[in-house]
């Protein structure tokens, strides 16, 4: 499967993949990183997170490795990391969104040109 076949990503999957770009994280790390990026307003809950990870793993987008801390609790025992495909997918999705954003900007929906005149 090529990266494009996985598009579009759900916003949740996209956020999860985004925080994994910087390196492997365990469940708690992902949850925290997502919250840091989008603020407290939206919470990603544990069950949905692991369900997503299960699916992303199955699709070959993320990979799972034993975490460094063997004696830790169940959520810290496993680290998740992007596969090469995963990296390509998140890049493709970002590009797709960027294109869409450009369209939105062109339509003057994002407020930047609202006060200017179309001279």
């Amino acid at each position, binding site marked *: 499967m090529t990266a494009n076949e996985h598009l579009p990503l759900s916003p*949740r999957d996209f956020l999860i993949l985004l925080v994994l770009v910087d390196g492997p994280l365990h469940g708690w790390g992902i949850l925290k990183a997502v919250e840091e990026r989008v603020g407290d307003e939206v919470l990603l809950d*544990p*069950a*949905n997170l692991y*369900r997503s990870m299960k*699916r992303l793993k199955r699709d070959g987008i993320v990979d799972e490795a034993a975490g460094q801390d063997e004696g830790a609790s169940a959520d810290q025992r496993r680290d998740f990391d992007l596969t090469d495909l995963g990296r390509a997918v998140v890049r493709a999705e970002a590009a797709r969104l960027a294109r869409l954003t450009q369209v939105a900007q062109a339509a003057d929906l994002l407020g930047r040109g609202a006060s200017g005149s179309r001279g």
Partner: protein
Amino acid sequence: MSTVAALVYRILLLLSPPGFRRECGGAAQALFERSLIGRSGRELMRRVLRGWWGLMQVTAAEWEEQFFGVPNAKRQWRGGVAMSISKMTTLRQAVRSVVRSPALSLGVIGLLGLGVGATVTVLSVVDGVLIRSLPYPESDRILLVDEGAHSWPDFIDWRETVPAFQVMAAGSGYSVILAGDVLQDIPVARVSGGFFELFDLEARVGRLPTDEELESDVPVGVLSHPAWERRWGADPDIVGRTVTLNGQPVEVIGVLSADFVPPQAITGTPDIILPIDQDGNLTRHDRSYTVLGRLAEGATIAQARAGLRSRAEAFATIEPDLYLDSDGALRRTFPPVTLQEATSGDARPPLLILLTGAGLLLLVAIGNAASLLLARGEARQGELAVRRALGGGPSIRHQLLTEATLLSLAGGALGLLAAMAGVRLVQAFEPGDLPRVEALAIDLRVTAMATALALLAGLLVGVIPAVRSGRSSPATTLRRAEAGARGRHAGTAGRWLVVAEATLASLLLVGSLTVVEGLRGLLSSDPGFDPANVWTVSINMGQLSDEESSTTGEQIRATLSDMPGVNAAGAGRTVPFQVVGGSRCCWVGELEYNGVEVDRIWIHPVTPGYFEALGITVAAGRSFRDEDHTTTNGPIILNQTAAREVFGDQDPIGRIARFGEQPLEVIGVIEDVNHWGADQDVEAEFYGTHDPFGGWASNLTFVMRAESAPSTTAIAAAVADVAPQAIVSDVMSMESRMSDSLSRQRFYSMILSIFAGFSLVLAMSGLGGTLLYDARQRRHELGVRMALGAPATRMARGVLVRGLLTVGTGAVLGLLAYWPLRRFTETVAPGVNAVDVSALAGFGGLLFVAVLLASWVPARLVAATDPAKALRDG
């Protein structure tokens, strides 16, 4: 809060498919718990709800995958970020849909409210009685040394030699006579040093006695806070005053703080706490004290157990007669139990049964609510199919789930209200032996439980319609909806729900009928004496020497038997049915004859006239006579069990048995008497006219056989002539004592019956609903058959047969499920027969009548079908 939330999460997790649970369950649980750490207030609440809700979404989605295979990427369940806008829409739609069919919604809410209400009521009782820790600092480290009361020397030894305990205390409850304008019988406790340290107590007024004072004969005492308010009007100058207890002056040196709850199991509820009175109790034979200990820092209950056991072994080398039985094994090992266990004690098994009963009722209510929603889901097939055809599959399921959650939360709120009423009812009607029942309250924990239960119920109720909505292809459904036909599946699913309801209801019904039947049997069983026309009255003769007690007791007995209308009078330390519910009172020892020893024989000090007044049959030898009374080491009378155990086939009359060092002559054998209650086994017992340990109790219960009830005032007046200091309690008939003795079992069986009744009504209304639904669906078919000449009565009979088959299947399944559980009914009412023929017959009859009632309307509807009309409409 976090603990409860985590527990709920764990329970919700159990509902998810096993595959998901194995792979992700542990991690999700750990992550959920971690995400709550350090949060509080609204933030905590938001995270908890988000976590629960997310798990419910995932559970539904995972089950869907199980049933319908892996969805493609476009059909993914979109929760989380994407849902933030559409969630509001879903919620609005769900609210609209709930409000649009108020009757159905109220029905579902009412059903869930009933189920949740019953369950939460019992849960809060279980929580208050069994789970919630006792109101003492680090109460789980307070242990009670089991195996009844202990001797003073044993206690002193443990205190000095068992290092696992930081502090130990001994104590015991009594009643004494408080002098005043009128004499009053008040409860007091005598405690050893260490008692106040163990419970970390403080004085509200004045000071507490020192450990030295508690183990000397300094006459000081502290008042309990309630007694200070009630008896002494919260007098601030109470400290330094003297009160007279049993004729002895005692100086009040303080009042305990208001929040101290006395440890019921040890001291009762004392008005005054006094120094321990170890006078005359110094031998190891005298076991009068309950012993408690607080575990030392770092020590475990296992260390305490080992320490106490090794002391038992040491005691056995000092006094082998006392600590070893005839086989050389340890008679006692003094196992420690937590005070919590000791306090909740007997209440545990029946409460767990009630909890099961409430859970079954909840399941029946859930089944009923689910079938209501299912029926509506069928009616909405058309609407839902259109939406699904437009690509709204996931959001439809989401909405159905949201609807069920809304309904169940409303049901939960109703259930909470019902539980508040339920707890009041339990407090009002419980027979007074449920520990700590007065402190029950609906608080945050109980509310959390109700919410969790309601959410669980909502998931169960909502998941069936939600899954069904994704089952068949929109096109098929639309075509069918167009043609006015309904799914055959709905009928089948509905019927299976009724079978499930009938199974659960049968289980409850047969259990509660067995208990009720068993109690009736116990009440009518022969207690070994004739309770008719027997009246009992307890008399506290005050502080008297042993000899005075004995003489005064005899004088009172003579006075009572001379009263007009009284045919016979006697007295005992206790009388039958006075001490019941698994407790025993007063004395137990060993009796030996010719090398055969009974390890545990109960001793009843009684006066002459006791057997005659109670109508106990003397099977061999003779009863006590007046002259027996004065004899120390006097004659004894055995019950038949004791005669058999000690003497076997020999005739015991005239033989001398040994009680420790004392030779006691057996002069008679009486028929076995149920002294400790109808539900208790008869043990080896003997009766003597003196206390074999020396001394006579100052508190006796007199029994009178009389044509009519003697008045309490007349008795008090008569007694006042011979014993002016004595306090006479109210006269009570033996029959009411017997009936009261089973009040606890009756209380439990009443609750169980209420649950069973509700579940039967629910199951039958479920049956009625399904049959009605069926009849409507088959209108066209019925019309055709009737047009072809089938008689209406046969069609109606068909409905009835269908009902009987459905419920019959459930009843058989229920009985099968009851079979392995049947022993548990005994814990509600020990001694009941687990398989009772009349209970089974009652069960069958009740169920049959219920099915007839439930099928009546649908059958009538079918019989009244007008073929022409049915064909035209259909």
